[in-house]
């Protein structure tokens, strides 16, 4: 494939890099980033510039339902805002911090912990006991201990099955067949 490794940081386009993003909690709907190019405090915005350049695609790939915006040259101090579903919002101050310090603070405040992600992935799987045309086992005849398949031919004639039902012992602990005959 020609032309796919162009750009400053072509590692951003690999799937292995995109899968290592931070997952946000369920209540978050909007996330915005504010920074700017000012002459007086140029170096204090250097940490957030790297986050926007290298980590923004990771956030959007792991949370496809969240609106992520980047707003430039609004206020002289850089910060993040998060808007929640019940109308609340809060800010994270970012001035003078490293790239790694910013990401670790976001994971602590509003990131999902590892145990919750594993619980939800296990609960979303299908029940392995199901059988049918969509699952692994097509018919109940494949389970050990059941009658063979009646789709092929007549396995057990129906009239003989009715006579067998008379000799069924419903409660073997209370009524033992041999003991009753001896008493009477």
């Amino acid at each position, binding site marked *: 494939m020609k032309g796919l490794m162009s750009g400053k940081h072509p590692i951003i386009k690999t799937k292995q890099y995109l899968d290592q993003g931070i997952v946000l909690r369920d209540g978050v709907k*909007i996330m915005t980033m504010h920074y700017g190019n000012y002459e007086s405090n140029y170096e204090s915005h250097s940490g957030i510039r790297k986050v926007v350049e290298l980590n923004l695609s990771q956030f*959007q790939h792991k949370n496809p339902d969240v*609106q992520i*915006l980047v707003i430039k040259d609004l206020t002289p*101090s850089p*910060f993040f805002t998060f*808007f929640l*579903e019940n109308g609340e919002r809060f*800010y994270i101050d970012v001035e003078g911090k490293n790239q790694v310090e910013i990401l670790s603070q976001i994971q602590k405040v509003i990131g999902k912990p590892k145990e919750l992600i594993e619980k939800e992935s296990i609960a979303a799987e299908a029940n392995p006991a199901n059988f049918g045309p969509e699952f692994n086992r097509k018919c109940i005849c494949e389970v050990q201990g059941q009658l063979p398949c009646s789709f092929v031919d007549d396995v057990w004639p129906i009239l003989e099955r009715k006579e067998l039902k008379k000799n069924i012992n419903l409660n073997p602990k209370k009524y033992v067949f041999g003991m009753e005959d001896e008493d009477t």
Partner: protein
Amino acid sequence: MDKSRFLSMSMALGKVVAKDFTNRAKVVVQLNRFNPYMNLFFPEAETLESHDPSDKAKVGDIVLLRKLDKPIRHVETHKIESIVYCAGSIVDPLTGLRVERDK
């Protein structure tokens, strides 16, 4: 343009562009779309008509929207909940001071 994804958003943040009628504002909303061949995100913008219950929004404000159950006047699908940044007097949320244009 695929407008179904924008109309199904429950909350959105946008900028006011025009105000022709009373109690109605045009808002521009931006989303990122994924290109599966290049593995990159590209921004897309779309205008939404929104309902303004109190006629306070001006051109250039940044505004928070919320979805309505039924559209009002057949066209307005979202309503303006609150104004986040007012045009002309921007307040820095961390320090509480007003911002000059050059700084």
